[in-house]
Each structure stands twice: as structure tokens, then as C-alpha cells.
């Protein structure tokens, strides 16, 4: 039981750090890294719940494989966008890129 709490706390801490990073950081690459942190926190949660709630199955593992795959694709896409943004604005500071306003 103790192990369960420790694992979930790790996941929650990791998610909070990731969220904090997304909210605070101005650098687009760092925001992406924070998002990766959040995704991994979710992965930890998934494997923990599989271990303690559905032992003997592989539901969580399957889901994790999906998350990792999609995360990899997402990072690839996001990095490409960040590169394009840098080409256009000369910066990847998201505060400077407020074209969405108006």
C-alpha cells in the first residue's frame, strides 16, 4: 500500500511540475518539455493503477505505448512548428508571439 501512495505521489508531483512549467515558462521549447513531463506523469499513473487495480492484465501498458507513440509524433510536429515560428518572428518567446489577439 505504501508503495502505491509513493508511486501516485510521484506522478502527481511530476504533473504539477509540468503544469507549473507550462504556465511559467516563456520559451516554447521548455513548454514542450514541460508537456512531456505531464505526459510521463500520466504514464506513471497508468502503470500504477494497472499494477494495483487490474493485476495480471496489460491495459495500462497498452495505453502507455499509445501515449508514448503519440507523444513522439506530437513532439516532432511541435518542434517543426517552433522552428517555423523562429523563422518568422526570430524568437520563440511566446509572450512576443501574441498574434492570436485581435
Amino acid at each position, binding site marked *: 500500500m505504501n508503495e502505491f501512495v509513493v508511486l501516485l505521489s510521484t506522478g502527481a508531483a511530476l504533473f504539477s511540475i509540468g*503544469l507549473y512549467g*507550462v*504556465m*511559467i*515558462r*516563456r520559451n516554447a521549447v521548455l*513548454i514542450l518539455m514541460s508537456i512531456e513531463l505531464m505526459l510521463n506523469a500520466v504514464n506513471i499513473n497508468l502503470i500504477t493503477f494497472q499494477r494495483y487495480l487490474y493485476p495480471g492484465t496489460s491495459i495500462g501498458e497498452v495505453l502507455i505505448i499509445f501515449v508514448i507513440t503519440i507523444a513522439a509524433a506530437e513532439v516532432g510536429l511541435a518542434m517543426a512548428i517552433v522552428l517555423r515560428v523562429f523563422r518568422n518572428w526570430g524568437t520563440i518567446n*511566446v*509572450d512576443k508571439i*501574441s*498574434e*492570436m*489577439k*485581435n
Partner: protein
Amino acid sequence: MDNILNNSWAPLLIPALPMFAFLIIFCVNLLTKTKLVAYLSIFAIFLSFALVIFEFSKFISDGESYLSLTWMAVGQFSFQIGYMLDALSLMMLLLVTSVSTLVQIYSIEYMKGEERFGWYYAAQSIFAASMILVVLTDSLLLLYIGWELVGLSSYLLIGFWYEKRSAAEAAKKAFITTRFGDVGLLIGIILIYLNTGTFQIHDVLQSISGIADSTVTIIAALLFIGAMGKSAQVPFHIWLPDAMEGPTPASALIHAATMVAAGVFLVARLFEIFVLAESIMWVIVIVGGVTSILAGLMALAETDFKRILAYSTVSQLGLMILALGSSGLGDPEHSLGATSGVFHLLTHGYFKALLFLTAGVTLHSLHKSSATIYEVRGLGRKSPITAGFLIIGSLSLMGIPPLSGFFSKELILSAPLAIEGIRGMGVFGVALLACFLSSLYMTRLILVVVQGSLSNEEVKSHAPPFVMNLPLLILSTISIGGGYLLAGPLDIVNFLNSSQHFHMDYVLATISTVVSVGGFAIGFILYNQKTVVPNEVLKYLKPLVFLIENRFFFDKLADIFVKNVSLATANFVAKFDRKVINDIFVDKIGMSPNITGEILRTVQTGNINQYITMFSVSVLILIALSMWV
């Protein structure tokens, strides 16, 4: 309805045929000049006429027939369409379809080469169709629809030459003036529905006696306002003389069979309602009397050929209304009912159509749409046939025996005598005076138009073509013999009102003949140019002449009414709409999303960090809420 005897679909075709003709002409080409549209329209109305004859013979052998179909039912309310073929509607149908047919045949020549020839025939067809609908239908709702269509199509015909400003104005005047009456009719019909729960005329007439007297009085008053508008009774008569701006055959139709007949027909059709409201009957008598006298006087002062005829129509309509009112006031046992007015409506329809069509012939030869009687002088030399037709129509209108007008006027004059006491005699006197006036103005018309040498060296025009003379010939035959035929062998009184018979009261006949011949004689003396009226008499007549020349100020009164009441109300409503409805309700409510948007747009910073923070916070709040709930 319990007495459905023999219901066939055929009578529904009577209004449908001209309507189809209208639709076909409308869809094919309104601007066509080919005579084909005329033939199509005439063919349709003639088929209707033949159908009427067929139904007439069926009526004589089988009696009345009804048909009532439910067109749609909404909850408690069901909308019925159907027809009601009784003596009254058959007589009216006969008049409408026959006069329409003749007028349309006549128009082939009259409207030849007209820019909107097809449009003219389309309007004629829908005019006939809507009037047939009015007289044939068994439902007050359909009657109202037909009633409005009659108004619309007469608007179209009066304003046929709408390039001419006066014609457009006259059409508008006719439409708006009759609309005043139509509103009364509509409210009356709604009141009838609220009180009896049905629109079927048959059922309404049966259940109307069970309604409170005051309600019946209001209903009768409202219905009569509708009749006043259409039948051009004072003070709504102002539209009729102006309606002369339309083509003359259209005027003939409006004056004889369709538009103005609708009002008299309405009173006759719903006579049982009017009988229950005695006070309204007196109003009807007074309005009819005043109208016939005033219009007769105005006809005396008028110089325009067609306008004289128009005023004489108003005057004769007044007489019909007066007769209808009087026969509702007399002893119900011996009452003529609606017959008194309807007989004159029929004979008047034919001889007035004849008069208008002869006027059309004379104007057509001058290539004018209107002319004063002095401009058309010398008709007797120029075209003796036309002059003969004119004289036949005029003598019939005067009520000279044995022309048709004599018989119907006899019936009209006998109606007031049924009222007891001095009041009956008073009404009788008014009717006699109106007859005298009509003799007088028609004599003047004949003397001026027929007499005289050919003025302004006109070329002796060739005789009017056969298509124009044929309708005139038929109409004048009816004007000569129709009255005797209807009064004698056919006994129209018995036909329309089975409890009575037509019987000639010889004293009355003598009086009426003396009055009309007297009018003729006095007119002959007065208007023969050699006669000089002494100055003292003229001085006496000055105020009257002043009044007549100003048309009794009715046009001015209408002007003042429109300016001060209608326009003032309209202005007030327009201002209310602009200031209150628009500025406060529409604009302020329209502003509210704007203002909300102004407040909310400050949130949209474009800063991703801020968005994420807001998103996360709101998710947290939602999670907290879901746990708390």
C-alpha cells in the same frame, strides 16, 4: 346542413373557369397583343354563363342545392368551401356572367392595339371570377375573400392606364375608400363567428335570431358599413366618379354587375340579420335616401359624360339600398324582403352597362378616355344607332313604361309604402324625388348628346363595328323586355321570395310614370337651349348650386379626415415606432451583446501562458465542484 339535395361539383367551375383564364394569361404573357387572350377569356366566361343557365334549369326542376366541403380543420375550427345555389345567387350569377361576357366581347374592339391588351383581359377575368365567388359562396369567409378580390381587381382596372397620374390616383382612391368599409365587414364577420360559431351563411341566418339584440345591431351596422363602401353610399361615394379614369368597358362592369353590386348583394344576402336590427334599418333607409338625392343633384351639375353616368349609378344604388331598408321595416307578413332592391339591381345592371358601353362607343370614336357631354354633341347625326341605344338605356333608367326600369322602380317605390304612418310617406317622397331627379339628369344627357349639329367639323365617322354593336343590341333588348319578362311571366318576386307575388299597383304605377314623364318634360323645357330661367329663380337656387358645384364638400371632408385623422394617427404610430420600439427596444437590446463583448474581450490577451493558467484553474474548479456536489 341537413337539406343537401343534389350536390355536384359543376357549380364550383363557374368561378374557377375565369380564374383559370386569368392564371393562363398571367403565366403566358401579360403584354401580349394577340386577340387569342381575349378569345380565351371570353370563352371561359361564356362557359361559366352556360353553366349558370344549366344550373338555372336544374334549380327550376330540383330546387336549391348546396355543397360544403371541409378544406382544412384546425382544432375546433374547420374551414369550409362550398356553394349555395338559391334564387338570389342564381339571379346574380346570371347578371354577372352575362354582363361580363358582353363587356369582354365589346372590349376586343375597344381595347384593340392597347399596349397591355393581355393584362386587361387578365384583370377582367379575375374581376368576374371574384364577383362570382362573392355571390356563389356559402361561407362568409370566402365571401370576404371574394369581396377583397373584387376590390383588388377593380383597383387594377381603374388604374389600367397607370401612366396617367389621375388614373393611378383614382385607383388608389377607390381602393382605400372601399377598404374603410371592408374593415367594418371583416369585424362584422368575426363578430358573427364569435356569436354563432360558424361561417356558413345558411347556419348563420338560422341561428342569428338567438343572439342578443344589441349584438345583432352592432353586427348589422358593421356589415352595412362594408356594403356602403362597396356600393358607394354617402359618404363613401367619392371613389365612384373618379373611377371613370379606367377604360370605359371596365367602368361598365364596375357599375353594372360587379363592384357596386356587391354591397347591395351583401345586404340582400344577409337580409335576415338586418331585419332583426330595426334601428340599423332606419340608418339604411336614411343613407340610401340621402345618397340617391345628393347623387342625383350632383349628376345634374356634372358635365363629364361618364361622370354623369357614375353619379346616376350612385343615385340608383341609393334607391336600391333605400328599398331594401324599407322592406325590412314594413309589416313582415307582406314584406317583399330583399326582392325590392335586387330586382332593380338586375335591371339596372343591364341598362347601366348599356349606357356605359354606348358612352364607350362615342368616346372611342373620338379617341378619348373621357369627354364632356358638350364635346360629344351631335351623336344623333353622327351615329343614329348608338344614339338609339343611348336613348333606350336612358328611358329605361328613367322608368318610362314599359322598359325594364319601370317595373323595378315600381317595386322600389312600393317598398316604403309598407312602412306605417307619416314616416313611410316621407321615405316614399324621397324615393319619388330621386326618381324625378334621375329623369331630369338623363333628359339633360340625352338632349345635349343626341341633339346638335356636328361641332368642330368632325368627319362623319363610320358606324361602330359589329363586335361593339352586338353587346349593345343584346343589352338594349334586355333593357326593353327584361323588366316585363321578370315581373310578368317569370314573377321574380315569387322566385326570390316564395311567399309573395309581383302585382302591379296601378295607382303607384301611374304616380311613378307621371313623375318620370314629368321629369322628362321639365328637363326638356329646362335644357332646351332656348329656355331662359328667370333670374329670381336662379338667385333662390344659388346656395344649392354652390353646394352642388362643390360636390357637397364630401371630397374636402374626406381630405380633412385623411389629413387630420388618418395621417395624424399614422404619424404618431410611426414616431412611436421610431422612438420607442426602435430606439429603446431594438437598439438597446442590440447593444447588450456589444457591451458584454467589450467587457469579455479584455480576457483575450493572446498570451498562451495566461490561457493555460485559466484553463487549469477552471478544470480545478470543475473538479472541486464535482466532488462537492
